[in-house]
């Protein structure tokens, strides 16, 4: 019995003096890694799921196109639209957009530009195929269909 009593008497305190340091370390980590998103997406984005995902290494080479039904249906209608940066564009304006994005890259890397298509589930293939044709013409032929990871089926 005496053994147990001895143990119960020992006061256990976790030292808290280093807590601010730990918290600050975490804080700096998140401050450094946080990137504020500069575009607000104005089309519906229910991203499809797939299992065979690949990861892109060079984030700076990736440019996004968002396609889907506009969020504000009363203003823009129900037809799916293409959003580039902060505006809607027509399929024929894609070439111009690609060239504009290419000019922001280093000259040696311009042909490595990758277009990530973030397309809503319910969008029809038609408009996407139009965009693909334009991307071919603009010679931006690396394409990524943005998808979420599919959890294993049971």
């Amino acid at each position, binding site marked *: 019995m005496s053994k147990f009593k001895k143990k119960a008497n020992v006061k256990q305190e976790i030292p808290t003096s280093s807590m601010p340091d730990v918290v600050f370390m975490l804080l700096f980590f998140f401050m450094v890694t946080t990137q504020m998103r500069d575009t607000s997406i104005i089309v519906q984005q229910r991203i499809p799921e797939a299992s065979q995902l*690949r990861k892109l290494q060079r984030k700076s080479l990736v440019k996004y196109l968002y396609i889907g039904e506009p969020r504000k249906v009363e203003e823009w209608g129900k037809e799916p639209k293409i959003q580039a940066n902060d505006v809607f564009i027509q399929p024929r304006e894609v070439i111009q957009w690609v060239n504009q994005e290419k000019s922001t890259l280093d000259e040696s890397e311009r042909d490595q530009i990758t277009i990530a298509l973030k397309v809503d589930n319910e969008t029809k293939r038609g408009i996407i195929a139009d965009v693909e044709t334009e991307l071919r013409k603009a010679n931006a032929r690396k394409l990524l269909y943005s998808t979420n990871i599919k959890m294993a089926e049971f």
Partner: protein
Amino acid sequence: MPRPTPDIPNASMADIAFLLLVFFLVTTTVANIKGLSVGLPPPPEALPPEDVKIPERNLFKIQINSFDNLLVEGEPWMGSNDQLTEDIKRFILNNGNDPTSSDTPQDAIVSYKTDRGTSHRKFIEVLDVIQKAYYDIYADRVGVSNDKWREIASDPNKSPEFAELYDRGRGRLPDGKLEIPMNLSIAEPTQVGQ
């Protein structure tokens, strides 16, 4: 006479730091650039006029109509996606055994055609199935898992080991061609729907 040094209370410092921490935790979005990667063909005008007739046996045709129904090799597809993956694998690796299936993996082409009215969800679902067939084959050849293969393929230049596996999996020949290239042809969609 030394003046008493004023003390700044620092008991609340941890609280303030916590508050900021929580703010950044909440606003952080991990940039997620993952997805199905495909390469588009060169622009239509740059392609030489096509008069090469591809024999029927070297084509594996997958079509989807505007109601998201699947047609595989001309027959409505009733099986599961896993079965379709297996069928595609068998087609690619036929090597001339079955006279109705492909001659060599190099000649084998998976032709994927949709309609303008096909939904993007279905398109991605079937594209996923086709790519799985190829990645499975590559992964099998070097004895790694499918997940590992995709990690290698995402960044083959990460290490010499990765580069070696990547070349061996796809069967890179001395002239730069591949033994098993991913011959995926995504055709211009038909105009029935929409």
